[in-house]
């Protein structure tokens, strides 16, 4: 077993992989965002129920590798109950961490996510770890756009 393999597949990652969080589909959602990783075929569907400013619940359905599944599971755990601003900050911090920017900071209680740093040794897999977070950011952007768009508020729920 080489050490770099264990660097990537840390115990906490394997744990998220084996029992991913946020797998329960939602009845209602006002964030709905799909992501694919064209180079390897990972697919993710992310839906979230936002109430006022707070992400009340989130559903992450990820068909992908241990890294993308674990990353999606960590995301589900991390964003639930947080404000949209916080969520955006976390997602951006994870993106920075995965791109190797050392100064990116996460709230202390989210140190699980720090374990994704090990993925950086596997450049091709960085995309897998990123997928969920990028998809989330896109979903947030869409939500924001639909809210600031005065003409016609798009209800993402209707997309179902």
């Amino acid at each position, binding site marked *: *077993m*080489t050490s770099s393999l264990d660097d990537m*597949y840390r115990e906490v990652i394997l744990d998220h992989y*084996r029992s991913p969080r946020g797998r329960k589909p939602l009845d209602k959602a006002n964030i709905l965002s799909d992501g694919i990783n064209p180079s390897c*075929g*990972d697919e993710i569907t992310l839906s979230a129920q936002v109430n006022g400013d707070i992400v009340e619940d989130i559903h992450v359905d990820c068909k*992908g590798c241990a890294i993308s599944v674990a990353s999606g599971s960590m995301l589900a755990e991390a964003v639930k109950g947080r404000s949209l601003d916080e969520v955006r900050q976390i997602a951006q911090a994870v993106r920075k961490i995965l791109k190797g920017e050392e100064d990116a900071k996460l709230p202390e209680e989210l140190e699980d996510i720090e374990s994704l740093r090990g993925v950086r040794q596997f450049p091709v897999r960085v995309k897998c770890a990123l997928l969920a977070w990028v998809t989330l950011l896109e979903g947030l952007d869409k939500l924001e756009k639909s809210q600031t768009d005065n003409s016609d508020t798009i209800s993402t729920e209707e997309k179902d």
Partner: protein
Amino acid sequence: MSSKTKNNIVSTIEPPVELDVAAIRADFPILDQKINGHTLVYLDSAASSQKPREVINALLEHYRHNHSNIHRGLHTLAERSTEGYEKTRSHVAQFIGGVPTEEVIFTSGATESLNLLAYAWGDLNVHEGDEIVITEMEHHANIVPWFQLAQRRKAILKTIPITVCGHLDLSNLDTIITPRTKIVALCHMSNVLGTINPVAEIAEAAHKKGAIVVVDAAQSAPHTTIDVRALGADFVAFSSHKMLGPTGVGVLWGRSELLEEMPPFNTGGEMIREVRFDKITWNELPHKFEAGTPNIAGVIAFDAALSYLDKLGMYNIHHHEMEITRYAFERLSELDGLEIQGPQVVEDRGGTISFTDPVIHPHDISTFLDSHGIAIRAGHHCAQPLMRVMGKVATARASCYVYNDKSEIDALVDCLKDMRKYFGV
């Protein structure tokens, strides 16, 4: 060379000669290295093959002694380079069944060969309402150019479906290929399923309806004897880098009647006869389709790759890979629930084995194997539509070639077992 000719003619009656894999491995410098502390087991030849010393040396020799631009030059180096370049053309012509030399066009790869066709033959001959038929098991290189052509010409793209066993389903061929069909484009061997398709049979059906037949031989040319006429093909495309040759070199073979009537694709130097600002005439075949300075060194070294394949004999190579595949099937069956895509009968397929674990994702399989020195590919293998038909997001793919042996299948299977323990699923 003689073994090649022999194989072409009497391949089905003479017994194959077993490859001396140990001797072959000694010709491939790259194989003699450790990856992550383990001896490299290279099972990714369907993506790109490794190169024997002869090919590497041919590149070296060219740049150390003979390099110059070709065709236009009157000096010694230009003559040497031109001669080397044209020698490969003759060799290719012979390698694919003995066709006229001017029917062999060098491109930068199978992908460019297929694009050339879609633009130059397609835009000339495909009109609104016409049909282009491909199959569900095509590589993107044999899908996207036809999709784009169909868009440009308002034509219809149709597909031949596959059976659950990974064969083409020809039961409705008559309704799929119609008098409106202009092109039937299909792979000779699938890069995911390993399936060898009955090209000649389909070509006959296509020709009856007046369609031309384009064969993507990217996966078959490296592994089996190719006789383009016997296949019933009108055009055939393949890449050097998958058949022991350098990257950046491909072949388009076409019947000269068709090539003659086609306009050029890329234009520029070499492919013209006369250029005036008001009128341009084209050079003769094959130069009409080779604009600009080609991959001179690559083409020249490709000759050495073909010679290496000739020496081993394509029939023997195919047989060797069938043996390994048979053994791999046997050993992989030790892994409960592991699913192998494509034909289960080795006679119907090449040595490209796609598989999925019921739980562990192909990426994780590949990363885990790599950490033990084993190189396989994981993903959609540039065949997303096929993946969708198979209901898979991705597969792991182990593919073998002349330098692989059964002990490497053992390494693969043992490592897959360790992997299941590691992931604890």
